[in-house]
């Protein structure tokens, strides 16, 4: 509480920012209260010039700047300059100008003379240079320090697409997109979110494609966020959602730059946050959650086939256990007779009803999945699967469950991993319980009603005002070409209508095949 009040007071100070005094000692005095408690802030005082030296101080935060660059290209030239004091006095502006223009070779430099601004610059990771009797300070941006190198993303693997994934640095991430999309119309807007973390957030969009109203909406929602800290775009996601109470992922999280660029080309906005290796694109559609980049990079037949299988996988992941329950405990007649007999035989030794059996195994699977994430190294998943098999065998021989239910649960769990979007996969794990509950109470009828409720829920959702279930929900026939089917690329002559855009033209009609 005390801390909070202090911060609040500091914020109030920020509102009535004061000017920095010109005397160096005074400057250090006023800055002291802000930086004294931070052991990682380096205060380096030195003399400017060799003849008639002038006292100067450089303040920076250790670890977030390029130290070698600082030493070689900022401190060294300043120390080595011949005459320091010849510009001092009422011509102090000239001195700063001289330093800025001739001595230091830094790309991003700016002058400041307000106290809180300067303090903030230090904590934002800039280098601040202060000179005796000069009221303004120079703020230089030489970001550096340790960060992860470019890497293949963890979940969104690709066979034929580019493998570069986003990392934790905003500048690098934007550059990755820029490299893929060299369009001068690609706009990058930056803002700061988080009272204390002061996380830089970038909105990317293509000016002549994205709808202005949509971008305004994105901007408005981001600006309305008032929170202490943001560490991942996942948090931003939850704060700008249309319906935060829906379990569905209403925005798509992107790990790869090529997908982000493709999203931009469809008229969407991409939101990136510093220190977060995930971008979010909005608006998102339900059908996107079952698509991957590889669908577009491989031949259309393969893309279509895989997409249809993913829809089946989604159905399995969400409702296969529920279907099993409703068939076994309510409607055995639907199962062919020759199959029913062995199932009934194996179930005769199991003491539980089908629901208990399913919930029991579901619970084990969920725990194994959760444990798999925390097991060290890549073998975690493998160990999970192996333990699953051994456990499954043991469960069957202990007559705790029948082999049929193990097949059902395993197929359902594996189907979860066939869903490319991680958030959707997790959501499907949650939805499964709703379906199981409905089927256990009302059998086939409950199963059907559960799907109905789910479909109506889907049609109710919007993402940045765009219907989430389009192009199925509001039926948009021209967009069906890129949903559960993937038509050849030369058919994509217009941008998807589901996401409204300013400029629907994509490519001219193309001659297909070589004329003989």
């Amino acid at each position, binding site marked *: 509480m005390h801390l909070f009040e202090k911060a609040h007071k500091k914020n109030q100070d920020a509102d009535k920012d004061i000017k920095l005094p010109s005397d160096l000692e005074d400057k250090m005095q006023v800055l002291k209260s802000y930086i004294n408690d931070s052991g990682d802030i380096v205060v380096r005082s030195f003399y400017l010039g060799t003849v008639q030296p002038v006292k100067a101080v450089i303040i920076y935060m250790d670890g977030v700047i390029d130290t070698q660059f600082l030493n070689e290209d900022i401190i060294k030239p300043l120390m080595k300059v011949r005459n320091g004091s010849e510009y001092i006095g009422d011509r102090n502006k000239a001195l700063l100008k001289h330093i800025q223009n001739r001595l230091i070779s830094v790309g991003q430099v700016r002058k400041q003379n307000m106290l809180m601004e300067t303090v903030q610059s230090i904590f934002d990771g800039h280098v601040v240079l202060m000179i005796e009797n000069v009221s303004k300070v120079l703020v230089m941006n030489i970001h550096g320090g340790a960060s992860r190198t470019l890497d293949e993303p963890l979940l969104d693997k690709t066979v034929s697409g580019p493998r570069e994934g986003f990392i934790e640095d905003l500048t690098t991430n934007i550059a990755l997109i820029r490299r893929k999309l060299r369009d001068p119309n690609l706009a990058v807007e930056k803002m700061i979110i988080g009272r204390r973390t002061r996380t830089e957030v970038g909105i990317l969009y293509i000016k002549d494609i994205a709808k202005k109203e949509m971008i305004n909406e994105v901007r408005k929602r981001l600006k309305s966020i008032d929170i202490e800290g943001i560490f991942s775009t996942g948090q931003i996601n939850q704060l700008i959602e249309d319906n935060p109470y829906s379990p569905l992922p209403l925005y798509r999280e992107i790990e790869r730059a090529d997908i982000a660029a493709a999203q931009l080309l469809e008229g969407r906005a991409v939101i990136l946050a510093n220190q977060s290796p995930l971008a979010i694109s909005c608006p998102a559609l339900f059908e996107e959650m079952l698509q991957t980049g590889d669908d577009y990079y491989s031949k259309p037949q393969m893309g279509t086939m895989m997409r249809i299988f993913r829809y089946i996988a989604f159905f399995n992941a969400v409702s296969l256990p529920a279907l099993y329950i409703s068939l076994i405990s*309510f*409607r055995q*007649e*639907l*199962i*062919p*007779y020759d199959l029913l007999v062995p199932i009934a035989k194996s179930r005769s030794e199991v003491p539980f009803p089908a629901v208990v059996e399913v919930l029991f195994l579901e619970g084990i699977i969920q725990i194994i999945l959760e444990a798999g994430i925390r097991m060290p190294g890549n073998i975690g998943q493998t160990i999970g699967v192996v333990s699953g098999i051994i456990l499954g065998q043991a469960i069957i021989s202990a007559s705790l469950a029948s082999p049929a239910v193990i097949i059902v649960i395993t197929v359902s769990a594996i189907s979860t991993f066939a869903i490319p979007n991680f958030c959707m996969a997790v959501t499907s794990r949650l939805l499964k319980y709703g379906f199981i509950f409905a089927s256990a109470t*009302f*059998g*086939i*009828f409950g*199963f*059907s*009603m559960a*799907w*109905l*409720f789910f*479909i*109506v829920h889907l*049609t*109710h959702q919007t993402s940045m005002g765009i*219907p989430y*279930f389009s192009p*199925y*929900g*509001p*039926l948009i026939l021209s967009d069906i070409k890129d949903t559960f089917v993937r038509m050849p690329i030369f058919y994509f002559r217009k941008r998807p209508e589901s996401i409204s855009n300013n400029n629907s033209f994509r490519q001219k009609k193309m001659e297909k095949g070589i004329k003989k």
Partner: protein
Amino acid sequence: MTNQTQFQITPRQYLFILTGSAVGAGIFSLPREAGSDALQDSWIAVIIGVFPALLSLVLIVKLCKNYPDCTLFEITEILTGKWIALIFTTGFVIYTFFIAALSIRIFSEITSLFLLTHTPVMVILFIYLLFVVYAIKDGTQYIGRFNEFIFIFLILSILLMLPSLSRAYYTNILPIGGAGVENTLKAFLKTTFSYASVEVTFVYYSMVSEKDKILRHGIVAMGITAFIYTLVTVLCILVFGAGTIQKIIWPPILLYKIADIPIIERMDLLFLLLWITLAVRPAINYSFTSAYSIMQILRLKENHFTLFSFISGVCIFLIAIIPQNLNQVFEIATYSGYGFLVIGIGYPIILLGIFLFERKTGEIEKK
């Protein structure tokens, strides 16, 4: 949350709402009811049965065209004044309540007969209505989307009927016209009732975004409905013969029973699984119109709509549990068939008459 677009639909969504309102539980008893008089010619009665509905559609559209942003209550109020408008709209609301209640009740009976033999009908009714309220509570836009998407299931379930053709005898439908004109016309009166659905246009008209396409899309919707009805009737006659149909409560469901498809042991259950999604559509579309009309009678804004969707849900539930058995349900269904003649054809004729009269006398300025 409420805004303008929530109560707006595209012409195509209107098309699917119309087919959705027509093709519901009624299709199951249609072949039997039409066949009781017209025998093997009942399919002809089914085809010509669409014309009164088309007439009704044309009349309603002609009337609403003059007041593009008004629903039934507002139009009647402008034309006749507050009290008559109140009576007219109350009649409309009660009628839609009954249609929605009947369609849900019939399907609950089917559900309890085929799927949940031991569950009381009331529980099934309650779950259906829970879903109906959930679907309508946020506005027309979502109803339109739902109807659009669910149409795929309609096509699927009609396709699933086709395997039964293997047991069809084409002699069953012969001689064409053998039942006589008089009998066919008798059946025509009954088949007319199954096309009841166009009267929802009274409410939905004001919400369609492109008004000039309404008539065309409405006609296409009735065409699709007529095609499906005729197909199902013809299939039933071909497979069972006109005599047997009379002894079956719901002939189309039996069509699935006799179809032989390997792997799936009982097709009728699979079909019911699909048809559950279709049977709730009339209830959704009708209960929306009633909820919206009540809201307008009480002169409240659209942001109170959720409350009225609950009210109409409760009313429909109370009406749906009135009949003691299936016979009473079918009896009431016949009465609501006459209701269609009053609401669908009587209302627009009266209102159009008043409109033309008032325009002639100069009370309404020509547009």
